[in-house]
């Protein structure tokens, strides 16, 4: 790992995207980009892999559905079958239509909450976490690109200047 990084600040999302492409084309390593809002196409330009979080949501949903089936069977059929309004209580298959709403709600409950928890864990956001955006303006209207320096500081600086950065700072160690 390099011990130095360059922070290039931009004030427009389209300029940022083209800058990311240029820096990428010059084979420099973009450590991170901080933006105030989702910039469409940025992940693609940076070469980030598509997120798999939707797949986890599906798996959590399946888990929720399975769990609800298991516990409805356990409670309503196996443990304590009751005659309620003459509804069939000795066979899960026959009693199942009455369970559809619960099965649906449990599926949604599991999928939504576990996906969001996964998102928070993967992106390291939770209560008492400290923010790590290097410049407070990146939540307002500025875009910051962090590029690793590998003994090519001046070359990189001039390249970044050419891409339309409004501020360029070199940071020791990060």
């Amino acid at each position, binding site marked *: 790992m390099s011990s130095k990084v360059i922070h290039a600040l931009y004030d427009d*999302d*389209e300029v940022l995207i083209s800058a990311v492409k240029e820096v990428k084309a010059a084979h420099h390593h973009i450590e991170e*980009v*901080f*933006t*105030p*809002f*989702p*910039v*469409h196409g940025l*992940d693609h330009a*940076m070469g*980030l892999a598509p*997120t798999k*979080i*939707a797949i986890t*949501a599906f798996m959590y*949903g399946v888990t929720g559905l399975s769990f609800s089936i298991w*516990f*409805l069977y356990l*409670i*309503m059929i196996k*443990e*304590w079958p*009751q005659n*309620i*309004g003459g*509804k069939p209580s000795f066979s899960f298959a026959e*009693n199942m239509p009455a*369970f559809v*709403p*619960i099965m*649906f*709600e*449990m599926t*949604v*409950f599991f*999928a*939504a*909450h576990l*996906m*969001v928890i996964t*998102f*928070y864990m993967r*992106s*390291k*956001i*939770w*209560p*008492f*976490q*400290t*923010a*790590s*955006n290097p410049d*407070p303006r*990146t*939540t*307002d*209207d500025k875009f910051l690109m962090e590029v690793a320096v590998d003994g090519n500081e001046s070359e990189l600086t001039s390249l970044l200047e050419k891409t339309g950065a409004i501020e360029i700072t070199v940071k020791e160690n990060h």
Partner: protein
Amino acid sequence: MGHYEAPIREPIIVGDKTYHDVTVDVAAAIEGKANKNWWIAFTVALIAMLWGFGAIAYTIGTGIGVWGLNNKINWAWDITNFVWWVGIGHAGTLISAVLLLFRQKWRMGINRSAEAMTIFAVFQAGLFPMIHMGRIWNAFYTLPIPNQLGSLWVNFNSPLLWDVFAISTYLSVSLVFWWTGLLPDFAMIRDRATKPFQKKIYSLLSFGWSGRAKDWQRFEEVSLVLAGLATPLVLSVHTIVSFDFATSVIPGWHSTVYPPYFVAGAVFSGFAMVQTLLLIMRKVSNLEDYITRVHIENMNKVILVTGCIVAVAYGSEFFVGWYTGSSYEDFTYLSWGAATGPYWWAFWALIICNSVIPQLLWFKKIRTNYIWTFVIAIFINIGMWFERFDIIVINLSRGHLPSTWAMFSPSFIDVSIFLGTIGFFFVLFLLYARTFPVIAQAEVKSILKSSGNNYKRLMPDPHGHSKYYEKNRIEKAVEPIIKEVKEEIKEVVEDVKPEATDNDSKTNSLLDKLGSFDSSTQKADDLKKVKGIGPKMEATLNQIGIFTFAQVSKMTKNEYDLLDSITGSFPGRAERDDWAGQANKFKS
């Protein structure tokens, strides 16, 4: 540049905003001080809330006998309020989830507040079934947890239990959806905060959000999937609420049209409440640039559609009740018996508020008018309360056994609790309006370039249909430059002109001295004979009008200088070479 938007679409962010302007506008309500009106509204709401809490405490302490319920009408005021509040809680998730799936960008100005309203409304809704239990400390019996009463589980066949699951899932998922969207906005407030306490609070609330590219990628995916999950969820909630009635055998409740009809009614009332709140909020919090006439009109269109669905459902209920010929159906809440019976006022309040007045929204003038919208929204809020009152009270007041027929009148405590929940709702909403970023600013920034009026002005409009595109924008921009250049040219031309006239006058004065040449009587000499006059100089002299040795011979120092100033070439040469002397010789 997020997405393509047709140039003819109306801008949904006005006021020539930049990204920073959005930040400042959203942060203003939080960073500024509350004004007097806010304090007055907050105090009134707080008093109502505390009053309601007192009434709830009294209910719990004494028992629900303090309510107006009786043996026949054993659900009334409380469940009316419950369904009313749940219905209101439908707009938020509908706006943020369904409109997200339909890619309706105008949702971004209003989704935050609509979701806040949803969550606060569901709080109020949840209160009523809980206190209706009488022994509220046993409320946990509705949860499927092992308890001291032996292996006694909840009844999963019952719609009332489905309700517990549906509403708690809805509340928790809406809360998480809302909070995830809030993180970047809390982070924005955090990074602007100057007071240490504020900074600490918003750091905690923002969960350390930093806005990395990968975080945003996940954020968008999570929002999309949550919207996909919340859409069937929001439809399921009121469907299940309607099951509370539809699965029973009470005439007027036992109706298969209930689920879609309840969902439409919920969206109808929810949007009406959003209109009520946002029309005030956009003024009070200076958000007119973000919650525009377009937003209001679009919401009015949703209200009109759902209102018409509800009206059709009323009509079909009325018709089918009559068509069955069943005498019991003549007392249901949508029947001739109800329209003319003891609850005629509740029946007509429902019809007029929900089906007649909203028809005014067919007129564009009315649905784009803030005052009209506000008044109609208030009527819908009232009408939808009456719908639930009618469904519950009118249907229960009559039944299969005429000797049990009864009337309901709410007690003082009933009314107090209802007013208390309205107070509680407004306490929460007013606190929210001063401490939360009330506009989803990160999302709004992402559509600024496609939907902001200043960007609309620049959007190319190949077919020439856009009202917003400034047609001669480039010409207009270049106009001052062209004007300047033109003036400069004019100046230059004016600078050059006197010189030209000067030359003319010089030529004239030169010819005056030397005598003019008349080609009809005189013959041109070969001036090249004079040393120093080449073919070029001869042509120049001819141009001036000097053709003969006689003319040249008359030249003196004065004329030489004049000639030099006219031709501008070889100054002093003519004098040096003594053209006049030479010409004198040739002349003879």
